[in-house]
């Protein structure tokens, strides 16, 4: 769950408490452990207390206190808002140029622009969809499965915070931050359909997929009243700090379905299809790593200590996975490759995503190390054994990494980091709440099921309307020329 509450409000309550103590010695000491709701009660009852103690100065002190209260809130809002705007920009950077370069380098030269264009097109498409209905379907209303239309056309989304989600930043910031997640998620799927999917089919599929798979999942996990929401009254409280289920399982599993439905690329696996520029992929992966700080630490929805914790966990998870993938490769092939190292880092970032705001640095190292090895086995062994052509390993990295991360979050989550179930209540298995692993499993199963069924149905529909796959001769010629009428490299002109 995106932070929610306790730590951000907690700071505010401390601030108000300090002011009251200074202004009014007779007031009872305000315990630091007061809950967020009592903070609100204190700030409104303060003038009454003052009136009883010092009647003649009441109105002056009252005004001063109210002004201070306002200033404190404004200061926190400014700080949180600054961080969240930067985070939103960082997450957009993950799609373009991050993912576009990462995937762009992995395809053959003739398909470079096509795969980059798919990511870029989603930046535009999903943004418009988000403004019209997307935000409302994810974060409007309070149904168990999908939101409503109360924020359609961004009605009511302005400078005031939405206290259900992020009480200290303008709802407009929250809205645009969440948009960036909706942009990158479908873009991840293009890794599986690379080098053979029609552009028209991609556009139609992604629009439908966003509505049918992403919006309900985002609402179920993060939306108020959602079935899986851990902080806002979900039936199966699933911990997903920044999108292990919503982003990575949903896209990864859908990617697998797409790869199976579309079939292999012509010539696969006999014909060599090596990445055309690992330099591009390398730059892309590094941008993804940096952007991921916005993705995970930004999911604290405030600039407090939880953001620091998530930032650190993210970094450690990525590093551990880069090492463990490289080590596995070194042992198996006798060399550690650059592609292996960057793939490992991405796998670690995926796996730490649901856990980022719930675990400390040491569990982050463990989660990353496990994810690196498992994802290495997925793309080298499992893919070959089953023979599906997940061209750029969207399933192997995001599906597998997201699933591992979601389950391990249930093991390692700690109330010390994020007391999401209330003060004093254990969060994850090692914290003493092994039932959480079961909750995580429910979340994982629902995300898998939604992605599997939704994607299957949508692929059938899109196949009837625009078609999914380019003709064989277009695939040979390359999608850059046949789908877009241009080439990535015209070096001799």
């Amino acid at each position: 769950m995106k932070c929610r509450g306790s730590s951000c409000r907690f700071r505010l309550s401390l601030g108000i408490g300090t002011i009251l103590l200074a202004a009014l010695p007779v007031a009872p000491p305000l315990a630091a452990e007061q809950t967020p709701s009592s903070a609100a009660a204190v700030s409104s009852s303060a003038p009454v207390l003052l009136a009883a103690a010092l009647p003649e100065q009441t109105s002056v002190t009252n005004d001063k206190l109210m002004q201070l209260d306002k200033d404190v809130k404004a200061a926190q809002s400014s700080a949180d808002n600054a961080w969240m705007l930067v985070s939103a920009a960082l997450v957009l950077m993950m799609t373009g140029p991050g993912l576009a370069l990462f995937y762009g380098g992995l395809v053959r030269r003739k398909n470079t622009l096509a795969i980059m264009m798919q990511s870029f097109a989603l930046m535009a498409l999903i943004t418009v969809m988000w403004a019209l209905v997307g935000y409302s379907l994810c974060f409007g209303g309070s149904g168990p499965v999908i939101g409503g239309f109360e924020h359609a056309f961004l009605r009511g989304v302005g400078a005031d915070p939405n206290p259900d989600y992020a009480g200290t930043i303008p709802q407009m910031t929250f809205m645009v931050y969440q948009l960036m997640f909706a942009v990158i998620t479908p873009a991840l799927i293009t890794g599986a359909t690379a080098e053979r999917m029609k552009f028209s089919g991609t556009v139609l599929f992604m629009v439908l997929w966003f509505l049918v798979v992403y919006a309900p999942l985002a609402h179920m996990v993060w939306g108020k009243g959602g079935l899986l929401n851990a902080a806002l009254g979900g039936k199966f409280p699933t911990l997903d700090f920044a999108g292990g289920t919503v982003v990575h399982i949903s896209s990864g599993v859908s990617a697998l379905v797409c790869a199976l439905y579309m079939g292999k690329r012509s010539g696969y696996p006999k014909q060599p299809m090596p990445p055309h520029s690992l330099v591009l992929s390398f730059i892309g992966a590094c941008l993804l790593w940096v952007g991921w700080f916005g993705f995970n630490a930004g999911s604290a929805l405030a600039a407090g200590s939880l953001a620091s914790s998530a930032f650190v966990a993210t970094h450690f998870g990525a590093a551990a996975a880069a090492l463990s993938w490289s080590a596995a490769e070194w042992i198996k092939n006798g060399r550690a490759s650059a592609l292996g190292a960057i793939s490992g880092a991405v796998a670690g970032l995926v796996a730490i995503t649901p856990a980022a705001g719930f675990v400390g640095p040491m569990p982050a190292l463990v989660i990353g190390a496990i994810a690196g090895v498992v994802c290495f086995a997925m793309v080298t062994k499992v893919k070959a054994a089953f023979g599906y052509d997940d061209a750029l390993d969207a399933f192997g990295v995001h599906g597998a990494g997201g699933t591992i991360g979601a389950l391990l979050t249930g093991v390692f989550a700690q109330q010390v980091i994020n007391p999401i179930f209330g003060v004093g209540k254990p969060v994850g298995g090692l914290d003493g709440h092994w039932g959480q692993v079961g909750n995580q499993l429910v979340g994982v199963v629902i995300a898998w099921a939604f992605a599997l069924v939704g994607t299957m149905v949508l692929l059938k529909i899109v196949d009837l309307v625009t078609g999914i796959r380019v003709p064989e001769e277009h695939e040979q010629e390359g999608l850059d020329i046949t789908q877009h009428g241009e080439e990535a490299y015209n070096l001799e002109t």
Partner: protein
Amino acid sequence: MMKLEAVIQPSRFESVKDALREIGVEGMTVTEVRGHGRQKGHTEVYRGREYTVDLLPKIKLEMVLPDNLVNRVVDTILKSAKTGKIGDGKIFLSRVDEAIRIRNEERGENAL
């Protein structure tokens, strides 16, 4: 006149060129080519997928030489292009009937 074609390792090209300049070879045509003889190529591994790269990058030199220079040029290339390993390349010699300079229509060895 003889035409000399040599396919050599790209890594030896600079020393071959310098050595040829030292003995007075005035012109050559160079092409980047790919191919293989007895050399088997190498394997590359990308995320567990192995590819055998059997067409390797080579440099092809072409020049037409006056008869009196041929042996020295061949010796020079042999010396400067050799690494001693499989894949060092080959030299081919063939007779040339005529050469014509386009600018002033000179013919024969004068045109070289």
